[in-house]
């Protein structure tokens, strides 16, 4: 048998490194596959029911994040730098149990600007973020 011939050239390909590489690739693809989606929760406030009284006005407690066309941020009427939005929100909501803000963005903005504001609010511990749209403001 050829096996017994000592020192003869070996005709087999050494497949072990090949298998190593393949296994690693296989594992990489298996890990990538079940990527769980991530997301930010938001609420779309529903208009009050017809036969229901409108919610009591408590303007001083409602916090609205307004983002204008240039991407400048206002908290209610108070202009806030983007990087101070989180700390300011934390400061406002430190003593409050109900952590609700509304986000109102200019229609011409990129979605990412608004999403980042929502992200910051989420990071500041706000648990309910409502998206204000023109129709909601019009009370529809």
């Amino acid at each position, binding site marked *: *048998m050829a*096996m*017994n011939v000592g020192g003869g050239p070996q005709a*087999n390909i050494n*497949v*072990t490194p*090949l*298998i190593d590489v*393949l*296994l690693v*690739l*296989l594992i990489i*693809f*298996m890990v*990538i*596959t079940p*990527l*769980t*989606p*991530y*997301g*930010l*929760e*938001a*609420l*779309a*406030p*529903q*208009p009050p029911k017809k036969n229901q009284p409108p919610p009591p006005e408590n303007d001083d407690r409602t916090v609205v994040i307004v983002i204008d066309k240039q991407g400048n941020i206002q908290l209610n009427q108070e202009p806030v730098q983007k990087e101070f939005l989180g700390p300011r929100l934390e400061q406002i909501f430190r003593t409050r149990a109900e952590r609700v803000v509304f986000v109102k*963005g*200019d*229609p*011409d*903005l*990129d*979605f*990412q*600007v*608004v*999403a*980042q504001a*929502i*992200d910051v609010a*989420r*990071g500041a511990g706000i648990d309910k973020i409502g*998206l204000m*749209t*023109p*129709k*909601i403001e019009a009370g529809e």
Partner: protein
Amino acid sequence: MQKQKAPAVIGDINVTPMVDVMLVLLIIFMVITPLLTKGQTVELVKAKNPIAMKEADAEDAILIAVTRNGEVFLSPGNHRVTPDELPGKVSDLLTNRLDKTVYIKADQRTKYQAVEDVVDFLRAAGVDELGLLTEQLTSQAQPGQ
């Protein structure tokens, strides 16, 4: 009659079938991976504080994709729709469901106008919980909560 001598025992494992199987598995995974992203592929916003939304991956999850140029696609099915068709179609999909969350997958560079429209029409369908799908920033890896 003399019995023929049996050939010497081969001590090596025959790895060829294994390599075959591995290659096939590898190819299957390579083919499946890009197909797994449901709906339209969009460039998601990168966020620091998103939460895991496993339900968005479900087969019957209501997923609305808004592409960069403001086109709207509704999944399951990945049909192209106009925003004003959404209330009817989404409320059809929502009947008999406990979880009324609708997932929005918007491109980061789409105008907020397009997303606002979708939200408005979803409100008309009675949806009040939205999931804005984002990508998690990995540079500041945090646990999923």
